[in-house]
């Protein structure tokens, strides 16, 4: 197996999943570090250099809102879903479940055959 190809396909597969995972995790307010920890605890580790640019992109797209606030003697940037983000997450979840069900069916059919 070509490891570079595997790595590139894995990256491609993860890219879309990360957006849904981040949006879903931000139904509750988080700052960057706790968000990363929460995602890692759920088995979806994501490094800083991927997460923070993604958060900014989602905020620019109007799906997240953020504010700087003091916590534990340090100023942190807290993120949460915007109303548009909530609606988008709902749509994306439907899409995700449809894709998941289709892929599962395809796998099921293959293993049955």
């Amino acid at each position: 197996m070509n490891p570079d190809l595997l790595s590139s396909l894995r990256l491609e597969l993860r890219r879309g999943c990360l957006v849904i995972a981040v949006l879903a995790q931000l139904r509750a307010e988080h700052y960057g570090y706790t968000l990363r920890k929460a995602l890692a605890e759920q088995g979806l580790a994501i490094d800083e250099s991927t997460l923070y640019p993604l958060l900014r992109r989602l905020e620019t797209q109007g799906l997240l809102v953020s504010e700087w606030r003091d916590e534990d003697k340090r100023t942190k940037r807290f993120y949460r879903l915007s109303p548009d983000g909530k609606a988008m997450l709902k749509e994306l979840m439907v899409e995700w479940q449809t894709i998941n069900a289709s892929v599962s069916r395809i796998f099921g059919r293959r293993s049955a055959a």
Partner: protein
Amino acid sequence: MEALDHYLKYVKIFLPRAQQDDIIRELSEDIQSQAEDKEAELGRPLNRMEQKQLVGRLGHPALLAGRYGPRRQLVGPELFPFYWRVLTLALGANLLAHGIAMAVSFASGRLVNPTLRAVSAGFGLFITFGVVTIVFAVLDYARPKAIFGRRWDSSRMDTNTVVRVRRGSHPISRLVTGIIFMAWWVAAHRSPALILGAGSEVFQLGPVWDSVYPWILTFALVSIVNAGLDLLHVIRPQPTRVHFAMKLIGSCGGLAVLIFLLTTGDFVVLADASAPSTRLDFSLKVINQSIYWGLAIGSVLLAGLAMIELRAWNREGSAQQPPHPRARGFVPGK
């Protein structure tokens, strides 16, 4: 943390100015939180080496900062196939031109310094690559979806367009090659070396090219307009008679220019007529014969193209006529 401050200073250099402080503050906060967790786990402050390891994991500052920038590519995946086709065509034509120039200089017995020739060819290829890339980058910036439209209505598509696209003469390719040809023709008129290459030291273009220069320019423009109309036709498939008429004008006009050129003969002449030599005369004869036969083949091809356009014009004309009542199953009196 000294290592963190040093690292973030480097990251800041590569960040967009308006967001620098905000991003650095957030990154700094994240690393400090990581360091605190690690210290709590170890039960002691991190030493210099551990701090460096923590920061080093983030990768090169430029790469980290680069992820914050807008994702931009010169030519996106939608236009890339057309870009690639035009680029290979243009580079191939350029190489061919240099090959011909080399042959001409060889035939004339005046071989230019090979290093100079290679540098000149490389520069020509580089310029071609740059021009094609810039044109496509501008098209890509205009958003391909705005050019192609978001929806595809196959019911309004006529088979001619599908055939044309399959044959590889996509309007975008023709539009770009047309623009490049026109730019090259204008430049070549001022500096014939673009056509004759090193041979321009010995030969020059005959006076006939001056008389056909505006006509070739006009028909190149007509061809660009036609490619533009074809592009519109792909976006909104509604062929009109004006559209076919423009194509016919392009083909017939081009044919007329070629036939006129065939009646002349002195396409290339000696630059210094006072210093004739048998070898140069022979080369000149071979070059003019080659151009003559090239133009003759071009005329036949263009005549065939004009016939096809004429048939398309007739077909479109009959398609726009209201169908005969019998053809529609109309029975008088019912």
